[in-house]
């Protein structure tokens, strides 16, 4: 449980995240500016000296992630943040850190792509975030906030999980969540304890063997052993799965959406209920581990599913794996920085409801 301050304040998502990082005991931030997340670096550099630990604008994203790598190896609580093209540049470093089993927080304030793309909000980096992103068999722990409050809270959650599992954690937000202002009750400063890190390279005392941090295991037998350890860790990680369900009890159409798209889907759900269509919503909070079982458990009670994303259809693949062919799974998305409107999503819901109804009539 995250402890909170008294009293609300109004903040941009990016600023709330940066303030939460300081309150979580941030010891180092290394990053490079890119819209729509530059406020994170700006906020941290505007702090009194030392309050946010070491805050450094690196010469590139590649340099930034390798600074995170080094500082994490030395046992510090560290983070970086960027947006889509910048996150792509960090993939090599993230693969190395996953292999070396080092904790860190990476924030991706997703913008529209591919390529240099647009600065508008997108969820086009779902695959990159949840399937590894760099080379080799590894996963990031991925949290998807859908409000400014969660932009703050998930910093605590991400650091805790990253350090407990010795694995990089990512907060996958989007440009809208970064730029919008909402009421936020900030987590309490200093309420996230520093766990012991006996593996850190902090100088070798005579009393123990030396610690080695590396991602190079040249003998395949050793490399396989490391992979087995990683896979065992990802299995243990499954118990950290988190999701939120709205009005699923009587739902005939189950919407599945994360982040900002989940809020749009929720508005569409309200509009659908006004028309007498029983829609429900499942919002994955952790994108890895993915709430496969939670979705599978709801499948027998619903007629149909609709996945809503700000991309061409990425999470829908994981939903289809969970549904395993038992029900039709439809998709509604916009791409390239465009955001589906609640009315557009409602239209898809109405179409599905009509189709389901026709099929029921034909069957009977």
């Amino acid at each position, binding site marked *: 449980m995250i402890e909170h301050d008294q009293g609300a304040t*109004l903040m941009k998502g990016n600023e709330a995240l940066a303030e939460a990082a300081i309150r979580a005991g941030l010891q180092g931030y290394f990053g490079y500016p890119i819209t729509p997340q530059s406020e994170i670096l700006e906020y941290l550099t505007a702090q009194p000296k030392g309050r946010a630990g070491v805050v450094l604008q690196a010469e590139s994203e590649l340099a930034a992630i390798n600074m995170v790598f080094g500082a994490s190896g030395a046992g510090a609580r560290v983070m970086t943040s960027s947006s889509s093209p910048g996150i792509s540049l960090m993939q090599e470093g993230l693969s190395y850190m996953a292999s070396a089993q080092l904790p860190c927080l990476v924030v991706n304030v997703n913008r529209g792509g591919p390529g240099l793309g647009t600065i508008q909000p997108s969820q086009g980096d779902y695959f990159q975030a949840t399937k590894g992103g760099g080379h080799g068999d590894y996963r990031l722990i991925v949290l998807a906030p859908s409000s400014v409050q969660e932009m703050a809270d998930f910093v605590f959650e991400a650091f805790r999980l990253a350090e407990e599992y010795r694995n990089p954690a990512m907060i996958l937000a989007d440009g809208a969540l970064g730029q919008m202002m909402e009421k936020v009750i900030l987590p309490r400063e200093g309420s996230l304890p520093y766990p012991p890190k006996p593996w850190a390279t902090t100088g070798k005392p005579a009393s123990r063997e030396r610690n080695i941090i590396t991602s190079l295991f040249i003998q395949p037998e050793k490399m396989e052993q490391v992979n087995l350890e990683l896979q065992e860790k990802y299995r243990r990680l499954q118990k950290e799965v988190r999701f939120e369900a709205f009005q699923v009890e009587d739902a005939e159409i189950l919407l599945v959406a994360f982040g*900002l798209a989940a*809020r*749009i889907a929720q508005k569409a759900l309200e509009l659908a209920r006004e028309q007498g269509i029983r829609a429900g919503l499942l919002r994955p909070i952790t994108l890895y581990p993915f709430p496969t079982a939670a979705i599978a458990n709801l499948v027998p009670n619903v007629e149909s599913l609709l996945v809503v994303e700000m991309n061409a259809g990425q999470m829908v693949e994981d939903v289809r794996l969970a549904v395993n062919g038992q029900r039709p799974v439809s998709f509604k998305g916009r791409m390239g920085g465009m955001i589906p409107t609640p*009315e557009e999503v409602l239209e898809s819901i109405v179409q599905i409801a009509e189709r389901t109804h026709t099929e029921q009539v034909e069957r009977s």
Partner: protein
Amino acid sequence: MDKSHEVIIAGFGGQGVLSMGQIIAYAAMIEGKEVSWMPSYGPEMRGGTANCIVIVSPGRISSPIISRFDSAITLNQPSLDKFEHAIKPGGFLLYEISTVITPPTRKDLDILAINAMDEALKLQKKQVANMILLGAFLERRPIIRPENVMSALKKVLPARHHHTLPLNEQALQIGRAFASQSEVAASFQP
């Protein structure tokens, strides 16, 4: 207030559009309501319609990005053209008239035009035109209490500008007085 209110405020960059939205959002937060403030930050800011969507609600806000609004406040012609037709029937359109060539045409809206630039120049401070508009808006749509507007302004306005607080309060009053003296248009058929 038992219902949520969704307003879009749009104009050129520099007209104080984003600040107006922040003042409403802060004041609503002071009153314990749920709020969201969603700014445009993309290429449209270079094309004449910087805008922000503010939602004030007694309960949890689902989507912070919407395409139909209860009210719109526009400060230039491109914004008026773009958002006149995004207002729900029976909604409220407040527009700054000094640069408008083509006025709005909808008959199903409560429409109020105000020359906030002229009024602001009378105060010898064109920067307070947005506060005149805000005063007029809140007179017609009292979604937040007047006493909280000034508390909110103190939060939004950088401390180095706090000496202009009395002028801003005066601008708010001018807007209020204008709106309270203006009849709802006879052509308005909700």
